[in-house]
């Protein structure tokens, strides 16, 4: 119990001091997570909607695979991306290993299936309600997917926050492809891992509190925006 109190005290101290090193780490964490979630949404949401509104042979198999991909272990993805981006690997020529870009790539691979699988479910549920009316009005499949994604924007906003939470808390992939380089690819989660392995548990836990607090703030903000918008548009 003592460690937890000490950790909370450390967390407060760090926040109040606005330690520049910590600020840099927090900013990088946010940048990587936001970039990953954004790319994952751009890839995953239309894919999920497309699968939901279309019929094609093997559709059920695709849905099962998509749902299974939600459980991709981060460390496996990290290893895979590392081997791809290594100089000895097929994409080595780009030289982006051990950079934040590599971290964004790994996290996008982790989160895109999540966005696709969840949006597919949400759009499919709505499609059963909207299908007749939209077809009656002459909507195409492509248009229906887009229309539904926009109509479900409040539900999807919650999904996106879930994806962001997953990205912000992820450590297994980013530590392998980023290398946890001080000042370059060190983010909150990898710093916590580092401090834990150095034995500085109160500091690690304190950083953990800070990470939780930031994610909480972002979720609260998103919730408020969603609620106000929802009240206007039902």
């Amino acid at each position, binding site marked *: 119990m003592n460690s937890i109190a000490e950790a909370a005290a450390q967390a407060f101290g760090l926040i109040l001091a606005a330690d520049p090193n910590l600020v840099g780490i927090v900013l990088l964490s946010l940048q990587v997570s*936001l970039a990953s979630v954004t790319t994952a949404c751009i890839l995953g949401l239309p894919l999920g909607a497309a699968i939901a509104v279309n019929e094609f042979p093997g559709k059920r198999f695709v849905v099962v695979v998509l749902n299974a991909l939600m459980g991709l272990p981060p460390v496996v993805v990290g290893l895979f991306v590392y081997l791809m981006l290594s*100089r000895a690997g097929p994409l080595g020529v780009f030289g982006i290993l051990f950079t934040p870009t590599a971290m964004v790539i790994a996290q996008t691979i982790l989160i895109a299936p999540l966005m696709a699988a969840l949006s597919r479910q949400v759009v499919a549920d709505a499609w059963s309600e909207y299908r007749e009316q939209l077809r009656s009005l002459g909507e195409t499949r492509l248009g229906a997917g887009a229309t539904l994604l926009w109509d479900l924007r409040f539900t999807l906003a919650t999904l996106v926050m879930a994806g962001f939470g997953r990205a912000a808390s992820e450590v297994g992939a980013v530590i392998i492809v980023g290398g946890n380089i001080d000042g*370059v690819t060190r983010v909150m989660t990898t710093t916590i891992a580092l401090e834990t*392995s150095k*034995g500085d548990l109160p500091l690690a836990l304190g950083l953990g509190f800070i990470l939780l607090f930031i994610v909480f703030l972002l979720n609260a903000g998103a919730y408020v925006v969603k609620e106000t918008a929802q009240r206007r548009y039902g």
Partner: protein
Amino acid sequence: MVVARRAFVALLVALVPFAAQAQDKFITVASTTSTEQSGLFGFLLPVFQKKTGIQVRVVALGTGQALDVARRGDADVVFVHAKSAEEKFLSEGHGVKRYPVMYNDFVLIGPKSDPAKIAGGKDTLVALKKIQAAQAPFVSRGDRSGTHMAELTLWKDAGIEIDKSKGPWYRDTGQGMGPALNTASSLNAYVLADRGTWLAFKNRGGLAILVEGDKRLFNQYGVILVNPDKHPTVKKDLGQTFIDWLVSPEGQKLIADYKVGGEQLFFPNAGQPGV
């Protein structure tokens, strides 16, 4: 619409710093977790960067992993502490030349209660034999790091085939120095550690240094430029600048100046023959 535009701008802002980072003059150094966790790099590298404008990006792994990263051409320089592994690396043609840089020592850590009764001893091999005889809990890094390789060498020199005689008392954790110390602390077990990590380690619990000063615990660090003939993308000029600086009088003095809790951690010995 407004929402889409704001999101797009946010995305751009989010990605700009990545672009900026790509322009810096930098090298990638594969080194070990123990070296990084000792805090030495945090002390040395800012001085080097100020002097030369070269940013040194350290990827800290176990020695075995660090050398593997370099074998794939993902690092420009390796800075590790396992002479035989380094020489194998050179013989494979992945490195240009090995420069000794500094040394520190390993220490045999254990619980103050000391069930194997090794405290104060000066002979590591005797101590290890006692630990094995007493089947006292012992934590090994098990991760092909320099420390792990040194530990295995010591068991062998003590005449113990550790692979055969390990029992539940021998905990092979497959982790870095810090986590291994954490495990030892919670298990009240013996563990071989480098002095640097131990001095910086904060979660000691009931552990203390029980055996030190034995010549066998000598731990030499070497730095090698990754071979640009085999890996054309290696930044050989910048890398060599870093190596030259490490073994220069200025670099060597800085290494000696680095202290934790008033104690010097690393002892510069560049140019010393036979290490």
